[in-house]
């Protein structure tokens, strides 16, 4: 260890600064430190599954409140579910950051429409959105539905509506979607499974 004279002086003056605060009776109680309070105490815990990859890790979602009527829970933290035999509580960088996905600034909050030629979104009600979409669909289907092909075989398809289905939706949502689309005669249907 080598110490130059100049360094020695600087060390002394710096050290004094530290000592001085205590010597002047400054805040001895502040030195009795408590760790940050465990933030999940009494939070509500819900079991769910990470929506990203197909490891489908179990997650525990922590929300504020106790599900009482007037306090809709806010998600404050998400971590791995130790009971899940696959992830055993671990999460990857995507899963460990799920809270920022749920609370993304880009979440959609209400129905919107962008009209032909427009350069902006316009907020509309659910009722208006469903009405306008259903009208489009019905007009299209009524016009383009193919009951029989050119050989006279009954085919009952609607070839002018395409649909791509979500692979993040639940089995139940997927099932209801395919039930609905097939009943309409949709065959131009695909999902992320292919991509």
């Amino acid at each position, binding site marked *: *260890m*080598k*110490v*130059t004279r*100049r*360094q*020695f002086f*600087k*060390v*002394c*003056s*710096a*050290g*004094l*600064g*530290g*000592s*001085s*605060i*205590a*010597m*002047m009776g*400054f*805040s*001895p109680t*502040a*030195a*009795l*430190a*408590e*760790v*940050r*309070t*465990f*933030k999940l105490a009494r939070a509500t815990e819900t079991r769910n599954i990470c929506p990203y990859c197909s490891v489908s890790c179990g997650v525990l979602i922590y929300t504020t409140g106790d599900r009482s009527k007037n306090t809709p829970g806010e998600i404050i*933290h*998400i*971590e*791995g579910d130790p009971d899940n035999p696959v*992830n055993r*509580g*671990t*999460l*990857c*960088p995507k*899963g*460990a*950051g799920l*809270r*920022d996905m749920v609370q993304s600034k880009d979440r959609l909050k209400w129905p919107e429409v962008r009209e032909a030629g427009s350069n902006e979104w316009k907020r509309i009600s659910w009722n208006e959105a469903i009405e306008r979409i259903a009208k489009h669909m019905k007009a299209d289907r009524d016009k383009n539905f193919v009951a029989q092909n050119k050989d006279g075989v009954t085919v009952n398809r609607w070839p002018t509506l395409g649909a791509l289905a979500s692979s993040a939706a639940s089995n139940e949502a997927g099932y209801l979607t395919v039930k609905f689309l097939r009943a309409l005669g949709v065959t131009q249907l695909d999902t992320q499974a292919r991509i």
Partner: protein
Amino acid sequence: MALQSLDIKQRSATTTPSPQARQTVEIAKLIDVSACIGCKACQVACMEWNDVRDEVGSCAGVYDNPMDLTENSWTVMRYSEVEQNGKLEWLIRKDGCMHCTDPGCLKACPAPGAIIQYSNGIVDFHQENCIGCGYCVTGCPFNVPRISKKDNKAYKCTLCSDRVAVNQAPACAKACPTGAIQFGSKEDMKDYAATRVADLKERGYDKAGLYDPQGVGGTHVMYVLHHADKPALYSNLPENPGVSPMVSLWKGAAKPIAAAALGLVALSSLFHYVMKGPNEVSKEIEKEVEKEDAQ
């Protein structure tokens, strides 16, 4: 009445000794670099748990991001591509506070109670008491603490002291997908490390070993390295870290001499100086120390 949820071993710049009667189990985090896939789950889990977020940066032509530890990124992955004897290895090291047994930051800190060492081994910063002088940065042999531009206080990994206090593992250790991060008593971690070292040796890594540097009295964050003989391969992990000579000096012999020599006038002006924030002296010392270290 208990004054803290974890027993305190020592406090920065505090002359009143902490009670020493209770001895809790010494804990440690073990980072098995040979099982690390550099996925950054630890980085994300750390930010998420501790409610800190850096600004979205940019890509600098490497996988590292953020590029360095910050007041919001208390751990970062460092990637190095190493080619030895025709074999390419991608050595990925999780960097962050090592929670030294002999913590240079605590020794250097002039603010009473700003840095606490708990008897379980965790070295924690208490921002309420921090004066932002930056001595902890100077004192740290691993270059870990960072001063926030927002509040002028020092931040670093707490080893999730809030989780550990309620007997939960640090967020990074719980999240780690491949089990490259393990958490438990220091003794258990050393035992487990020995099994990993044996496995690596069987796979041809003759120099595999545990990184628990004695220059700082051992650490509460340890690494299993495939090349324990060359820690520098892992993004310049120090080979023989020790508490800076500067810090040792003033904590030991220099402090009383200085106090006697300078007197009260100088003291009060210094007090004012220190309270105002990051001070020039510390930066100069830092430079000197770096120069010293480089020699």
